[in-house]
Structures are given as C-alpha cells and as structure tokens.
C-alpha cells in the first residue's frame, strides 16, 4: 500500500511540555485511521501538525509523496472538523457551507456552488436547515454543518478532532454510523481523533494508540484489541478495561506475588512478567482463590463485577443467570488460553 499521508519522526513541544516525540505514521489513500489516546496524549497536536495549523519542531510530513512540512493549511487542501464545531456565527447554514467554495482561486460558478451545497446537505440530511442561522442549530446539527463545510470542497485529506465528543450519547452513535457510511461514499483518507475506545473500535480501519506523545501501537481494531503490545495499550481498549497483574511462574502456575495463583502457565519456571486478562475472560466461579465482590454494575446484558482478588481490584463480566451482591465471596477462574503476557524477565 502506498500511503497518502506519511509522518516521519515528528517532534513537537509546547513550551516546556513535549507534545509529540518521534511520531511515525502512515495513512493509506482510502483509509480511516483512528488516533486513540487519553486526554493530553498529544492527539490534537498530531492532527494539527497534519493540517499545518501547528508546525513540527522536527521530522517531515509527506502528502502523496510531496514534502508539505512547511506548507500553510490552505495549501495542503485538507479539511478539519473541530471539536467545538467552529461554525461562522451569524451566518446561515448555506453561507457557512458556501464559504470555502468562495475562497479566492477556486473559481467556481454560482451554479456549481449551489450544486455542491445541495449535494453535501443531502448527504448529511441538513437540506431543511440551509436557511437557518447557525446559532439556532442543535449540537448535532452544528456538527453536521461543520462536516458539510469540510466535504463541499472535496479535500484531499479529512481530519476530525473528537467531532462527536460534545454530543449526547444517542446522537453520537447515529453520527458515528453516518460518518462511517459517508467515508465509503467519499473515498477520501480520514484521520479521526478520539478518546472513546468504542468509537475507535467501531469506525477504524486501523487504530494508532497514542500516549504521552508516542505511538504505542498501530493495527486493525482486532489486532489492537486482542494482541495489545503493552499494558498501556491494553488499558485503553475494552470496557471495562483489561486487568493487569504482575506475575511470576512457579510450578506450572502464574502466581501474583505471594497472594495466590492466578492461572495455569506453560512458561519457564521463575519467569516474571506482566499479565493481561480481559474482564470477559474471567469466570466468576470455578477457581481456587477467594475474592470479595465490591461493586455490582448492571451493564444491560451482563453484570460487571469489581472484586477484591489477589490484592488488587479486578474487573470481570458475569452472566445474568446468577445475581451478585456486594460482600459476596466468589472464586474467579481465568481462561488461561486467553491471557496476554508482556515483559518476560528471567527470574532470580
């Protein structure tokens, strides 16, 4: 695959804080890449470097093989959807949509402009809002218009900065699906920034996990979810988050310190490691160690239990056929075939 967008060793600092360090990233010509990371990980900075709103301190940005590192945002021909909508206030939806088309050098006729606005409005289901002033729109409508303003001019690259974060849950889900459909129609490469792992997993062709300005892992949602390369990646995906234990292999079992046995192990005797177990891979019954239920959350089709087990809080998912109450004692059993092992070290 010949990448459309290519970042090589991008560094960026805001004063004394290092926002990005040594970021390498490639986005395919017809790909939706989601950048996932917690608040402050440098996601927005990364996107702004791609757009040219921020310039990189070091490294290069290539678009379609051309070095655009020093180009202005306007020259890069990218579209940017901001978290805070960024509509031009006091203007009608139509004027907002027309604005990028009336930019100098675009030389579009009135007819072409009207056609494109109509096309975008239909695609985003905002035909009926065209004459309405932009302040009198709901959050969801505003974000649709903002997206519309980006697609009317058919940019080469689409950058979205947490576009759904300020919307309510139901709308978020609707727009998520619409965005996914939209990108199939447009066939423009997209980079989508979010802190919401559900959004990342459901929309992405590939996910890049960002933490403290560094890319931790890039892969398909399936790869990143099932084979996280580090505990940090594992903690960012999955709801509830993955359980991580410090373990040591002794006589065919993973021991958590001297607190007890977690699961069977085929590892060499004496090896110590970090061990990740997804909540859905722990059964509430059938294990050998006691645990105390602390909190029972109703997650709809299942229960989410937070239990004190082996000296730490462990999250697990239990079926609804049985009910649980805080204080109850259970014996969790880990599906030993599904655990993930990192950072193996020879024991002493």
């Amino acid at each position: 695959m010949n990448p459309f967008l290519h970042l090589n060793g991008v560094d960026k600092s805001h004063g004394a804080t290092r926002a990005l360090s040594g970021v390498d990233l490639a986005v395919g010509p017809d790909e939706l890449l989601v950048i996932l990371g917690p608040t402050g990980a440098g996601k927005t900075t990364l996107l702004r470097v791609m757009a040219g709103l921020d310039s990189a301190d070091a490294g290069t940005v290539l678009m379609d093989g051309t070095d655009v590192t020093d180009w202005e945002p306007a020259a890069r021909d990218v579209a940017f959807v901001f978290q805070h909508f960024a509509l031009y206030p006091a203007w009608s939806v139509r004027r907002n949509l027309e604005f990028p088309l009336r930019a100098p050098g675009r030389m579009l006729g009135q007819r072409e402009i009207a056609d494109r606005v109509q096309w975008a409005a239909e695609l985003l289901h905002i035909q009926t809002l065209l004459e309405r002033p932009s302040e009198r729109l709901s959050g969801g409508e505003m974000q649709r218009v903002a997206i519309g303003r980006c697609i009317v001019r058919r940019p080469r690259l689409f950058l979205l900065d947490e576009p759904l974060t300020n919307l309510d849950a139901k709308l978020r889900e609707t727009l998520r699906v619409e965005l996914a459909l939209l990108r199939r129609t447009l066939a423009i490469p997209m980079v989508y920034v979010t802190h919401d792992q559900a959004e990342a997993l459901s929309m992405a062709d590939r996910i890049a996990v960002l933490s403290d300005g560094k890319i931790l892992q890039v892969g398909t949602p399936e790869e990143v979810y099932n084979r996280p390369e580090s505990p940090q990646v594992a903690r960012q995906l999955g709801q509830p988050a993955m359980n991580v234990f410090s373990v040591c292999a002794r006589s065919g079992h993973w021991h958590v310190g001297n607190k007890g046995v977690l699961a069977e192990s085929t590892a060499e005797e004496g090896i110590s490691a970090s061990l990740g177990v997804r909540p859905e891979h722990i059964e509430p019954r059938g294990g050998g160690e006691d645990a105390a239920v602390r909190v029972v959350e109703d997650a709809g089709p299942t229960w989410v239990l937070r239990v004190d087990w082996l000296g730490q809080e462990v999250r697990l998912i239990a079926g609804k056929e049985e009910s649980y109450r805080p204080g109850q004692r259970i014996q969790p059993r880990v599906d030993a075939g599904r655990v993930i092992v990192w950072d193996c070290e020879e024991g002493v």
Partner: protein
Amino acid sequence: MRGDWDRGWLRYGFIAPALVLLVAMNIFPLLYSIVLSFTNADLVGSNSSWVGVLNYKFVFKFAKYGQALRTTALFVFLAVACELLLGFGLAYALRDRFALKPLVLTVLLVPMMLPQAVMGLFWKLILNGNYGALNQFLGLLGFSQPQWITDPDLKFLSVLMVDVWMWTPFMMLISLAALQAIPPHIYEAAAIDRASPWRTFRRITLPMCAPLLGLAVLLRATDALKQFDLIMALTGPNDRVTQTLSALLYQTVFRDGKVGLGTAYSYVILVLVIALASVFLRYMGRLQRESDS
C-alpha cells in the same frame, strides 16, 4: 388577611427611600424645569412671570443655537469616528499576546482614567501658544508655532484632538474585548477554508466585533454630545467656534443668568438626543436582525 396587609406595607416601606430620592432628585426637577422653560426666570431674584412659548420661539430664532447645534454634530461625528478607527486599529495591532502587552495596555489606558476637567487644564498649558510644551517642542524642531487654542481655525481641531486623545483608549478597550472574544478555532477554520486575510477580516472579524463596537459608538456618542469639561477648560463656554450645546446652555443659564431660556434650550436638546438615540437603536436592532438571518 392581616399578614398580607403587613407584607404589602412592608414592601412599600422598603421601596420608599429609593422612591423619595428618585422623586426629589429626578422627577420633581424634571417637571419643575418644564414650568421654568415657560417663564422668564433669572438665576438671581425671585420675580419671574409666565411668558408662554416665547422662550421656545427664541431658541429657534437665535443664530447661536443653530451654530452650537452644528458644532456639536460635527464634534460628535468627528470625535467618535476618529476614536473608533484609532481605537480599533490599536486593538487590532495589539490583539496578539506579546511580552510587554500588560504594560503597553496600562500606559495606553491612562488618559481615560484621568478626570476630564483636570486633563483639559493640563492640555490648556501644553497647547498654550506662547509657553506651551507642544510649541516649545515644535520650536526645537524648527517648525512654526501655531496658536492652538486661540486661533479660530485651529481651536476646534485642538478640542477634538484632546477628546480623541482621552477617549481612544476606551474604544481600544472595547475593541480588544470584542476581538479577544472571537474563538481562535474560527480563524483556524477560515485558514483551512483558504480565506484570504482580508476576507477573514471582512467576513469574520468585523461582523463578530460589530455588536460590541456599535454599543461603544452609542456610549461614546452620547458622551461626546454632552462634552463640556474639555471645552470649558480649553476655550471657555462662550467661544463662537467651539461652543457646543452644553457650553451654550451653561453660558445662558450661569453666565447670562437666563434660567427660563436655558431650560427651553435643554428641552430642545433633550428631544434631539432622544430622536438621535431612537434612530441609532433602531439601526442597531436592524443590524442585529440582519446578522441573525
């Protein structure tokens, strides 16, 4: 019920002090001055008699009044226009953060913080044709030394200049607030949308500042309309070239002692001000509606 009755009187009891003050200080003088405007009352002496609309007839016949009206209009228009342009220009130049910004802003705001009457006296010294600081300075540089506040061709300009000096900071302050209220991501969106700097300024900056600037113009215009302190200090209330309506009013009532005629003047001014304000408010309302649709 008794409780309600009590509470009713209690309510009036609380309002009463404010109400008494309002009536004594505002409403009574207002009504009494209407009566005065139909008499030939003097500042001293108590014998005055009813003269009917004679004072009002006199107002419109009196050439001084028309002259003062023109002077005032010209003064308000020029002062507010200069202050708006200069103030907004300064604010636009200073809108970004830089190292000495707080200091620069403080220095620029000083003129506004000082009492007008005092500043008027200071400027009278500075602008004095013979020993004023400005002319000393011009003399050092080898320029001619005009009679700033006595030359009939210059004194209006001098008063205007001092007013602009005093009140440009106010316009700058409001403009700065308006400029800084524009969210930066709007500009970023515009940059990505390939808007040229001029287009961004014309289509985004100006319209988004307009409501606040309109308010500032209204405030400044009503203030400039009442301008008295500077004129009093610089050229005096009875100067033909710089006599504004307030100066004329002062001259009539307090120097000439013609209270009846003076109050008649003030009512004509009041009607004018109300008319002007309502025109302006209507314009603002239209601007608001236009920007809404």
